């Protein structure tokens, strides 16, 4: 049987599938379907320094082969997370990644410091949340911003540091390079593509926040393209996400250059998707006599 485990920045994952931040809460709910150890890891709902209520509803809209969301970082704050959610999560026998967002450099640094004192496995810097003014997106869309925040947080962070990138940019490869130069141990991409839907009867945007972040199968080709571009530009590992729906998509994303994967929206269609995707990958590897899933990474043969 092929080996599904992967290693990112020194951290071992039982398989390359990580639940994407914001789609999996702090794990409890999906843990009622299957043991969370079925997943390589969990990127927790984005947390901020202080508790946030998030945006008013509606926060969700469907789009062709995808969806929009503007949850707006509803979360209990980093202290409550550390006290109430992390201990349970750490017992689930899966890698735990804290996804953090802030208004200011200081907030990011303070959270990174607090989390560095816990047994969380990795920290994912969310500088690309398009749904709140304070989602760090002001840092996430310029090379200077990404470089600077990564450098600052790096100083306060003793955990492996993933920087999560926004696809709403002209040149994703340079942005990734800036994260690498700033000291990131890995990059994850893509966060959501900003989109909008309008109810033609009320002429109101369906999402109360007017715009929302698009995810799901629709964005997959954009994600594959960006993962390919980024993995050609940086030496640190790339965690690929955005629209992965089937095991074939998972394999494709790794071939494009990803060392690990995250999945989000597909969970809403089928909560068992992670199980089906890992099983499919396992069979594919065995059938093709590939002994380790890591052998897929970046094996694209561009024309």
């Amino acid at each position: 049987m092929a080996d599904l485990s992967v290693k990112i920045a020194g951290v071992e994952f039982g398989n390359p599938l990580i639940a994407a931040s914001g789609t999996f809460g702090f794990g409890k709910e999906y843990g009622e379907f299957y043991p969370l150890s079925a997943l390589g890891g969990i990127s927790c709902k984005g947390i901020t320094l202080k508790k946030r209520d998030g945006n008013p509803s509606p926060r969700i809209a469907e789009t062709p082969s995808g969806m929009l969301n503007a949850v707006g970082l509803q979360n209990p704050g980093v202290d409550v997370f550390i006290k109430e959610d992390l201990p349970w999560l750490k017992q689930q026998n899966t890698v735990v990644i804290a996804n953090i967002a802030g208004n200011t450099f200081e907030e990011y640094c303070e959270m990174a410091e607090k989390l560095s004192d816990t047994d969380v496995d990795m920290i994912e810097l969310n500088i690309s949340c398009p749904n709140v003014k304070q989602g760090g997106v002001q840092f996430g869309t310029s090379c200077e911003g990404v470089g600077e925040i990564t450098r600052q947080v790096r100083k306060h962070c003793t955990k492996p540091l993933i920087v999560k990138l926004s696809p709403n940019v002209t040149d994703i490869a340079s942005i990734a390079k800036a994260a690498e130069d700033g000291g990131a141990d890995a990059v994850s991409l893509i966060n959501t593509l900003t989109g909008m839907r309008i109810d033609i009867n009320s002429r109101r945007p369906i999402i109360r926040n007017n715009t929302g972040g698009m995810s799901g199968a629709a964005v997959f080709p954009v994600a594959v393209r960006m993962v390919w571009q980024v993995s050609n530009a940086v030496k640190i590992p790339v965690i690929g996400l955005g629209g992965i729906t089937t095991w074939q998509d998972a394999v494709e994303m790794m071939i494009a250059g990803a060392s690990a994967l995250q999945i989000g929206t597909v969970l809403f269609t089928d909560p068992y998707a992670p199980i089906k995707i890992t099983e499919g990958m396992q069979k594919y590897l065995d059938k093709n006599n590939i002994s380790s899933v890591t052998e897929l990474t970046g094996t694209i043969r561009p024309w």
Partner: protein
Amino acid sequence: MKYDVKKYPLISNAEIADGIFDMHVEYDSNALPVKCGQFAHVYVPSKTLRRPISVCDVENGVLRLVYQVKGEGTKIMSQMKSGETVDILAPLGNGFKIEQGKRYCLIGGGIGVPPMLYTAKQTQNPLVITGFRDKSLVILQDDFAKAGAELVLVTDNGTAGTKGFVTDILREKINETDEVCACGPTPMLKAVAKVCAEFSKPCQVSLEERMACGIGACLGCAVKVNIGGEEIMQHVCKNGPVFNAEEVVFNG
């Protein structure tokens, strides 16, 4: 493991009123018992998001979902045929809290009527008030009758039953009951809550919000509730769909 997704054989899927369908699927209620007011999260082929539909009834191994064709998803649902299977994540949500010995007034407005059927069956001699816009949309009257409910039908335009609103009847009869449960459009729920507050009767309302996960993980279906003076965010899929009316911040 509390949750499960299963493919249930579709028994029938008939149009019972203008654009309203009654779907019956085979369901083992011993394996997955359902409380009244809970909902099913229905997978619709080719769609990314499931559709939340209240349980209308569970009896003799049959789960009933009564739904109105609104957009594309319910359209596709309405085209499913017996012999196919329906992929359902159920039961979800908290459901109505029913106490023995109380007489309930159950109010349904439009497509909020269906969950009241199973609720009626869980209560003794309930007063059921059903309201519709027009006679072409009236549903489930025979079923409520069979369930032994005291049944009142009102329509906005008087084309069936009494002309008027459910709250007109509620005002008349509220003192014959101990507690109110309601499901329907938000303006109706607000009006019902107001009457209940006036008469100091407890009132539970079933809310709707756009959903993704259906289980409390994505925080998509937030509603603001006021619990003990503090406004907090709760989620229709997990903390609801049923809330104490007095705690709901309707304009939130």
